[in-house]
């Protein structure tokens, strides 16, 4: 029962984390197109705070961030298999998401900006830990 609850909490944390990351990019893009600088500062701060809080709660406090960054020598065989599986899934998901975004940008003739690139790098870095948090019963 406790395990189910904790998975649910972790999944909610991941949803908030990834949605806030998307919001950061979307608000930035919207403000750039509409040229609203003051609105940008006011609205951008909300998803940034949500992102930081959900990141701390979901990844730092659960020890997932430490786990995913442990050297291979300190992991046992199950943990190595787990990180390998998560990296494999993360690579697939990241490739699909990035290709969709790049295709959309190419079709709409939208230039790529730094915020999008930074968010994609952050997304790639978060993804393996997010996959473990989403699928594993115990962390």
């Amino acid at each position: 029962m406790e395990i189910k609850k904790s998975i649910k909490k972790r999944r909610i944390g991941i949803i908030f984390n990834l949605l806030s990351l998307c919001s950061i990019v979307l608000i930035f893009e919207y403000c750039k197109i509409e040229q609203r600088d003051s609105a940008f500062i006011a609205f951008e701060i909300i998803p940034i705070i949500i992102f930081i809080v959900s990141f701390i709660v979901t990844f730092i406090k659960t020890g997932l961030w430490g786990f995913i960054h442990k050297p291979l020598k300190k992991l046992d065989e199950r943990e190595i298999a787990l990180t390998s599986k998560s990296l494999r899934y993360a690579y697939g998901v990241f490739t699909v998401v990035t290709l969709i975004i790049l295709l959309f940008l190419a079709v709409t003739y939208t230039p790529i900006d730094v915020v999008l690139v930074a968010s994609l790098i952050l997304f790639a870095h978060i993804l393996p830990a997010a996959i473990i948090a989403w699928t594993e019963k115990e962390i």
Partner: protein
Amino acid sequence: MESRKIYNRIAILRREKSLTRNELADKIGVNFQTIGYLEREEYNPSLDLAFRISEVFELPVGLIFSIEPLTPLSQLLTKK
């Protein structure tokens, strides 16, 4: 290739030896959570890990692990 489920007697043998999950984990060099996964038969150990477990319990690997559901040792002893 899909791996077969491997059944084991780790939970009962650990309790028999009055070992905690942490103690057994330290003896075989894995994380204590891995012991939980092994006991729930949610993870198949490598041959090396299986031998390390058998060394701790001083029993042959074949008596601890099986590809068929295991009958309790007491039942095996009383069986004619």
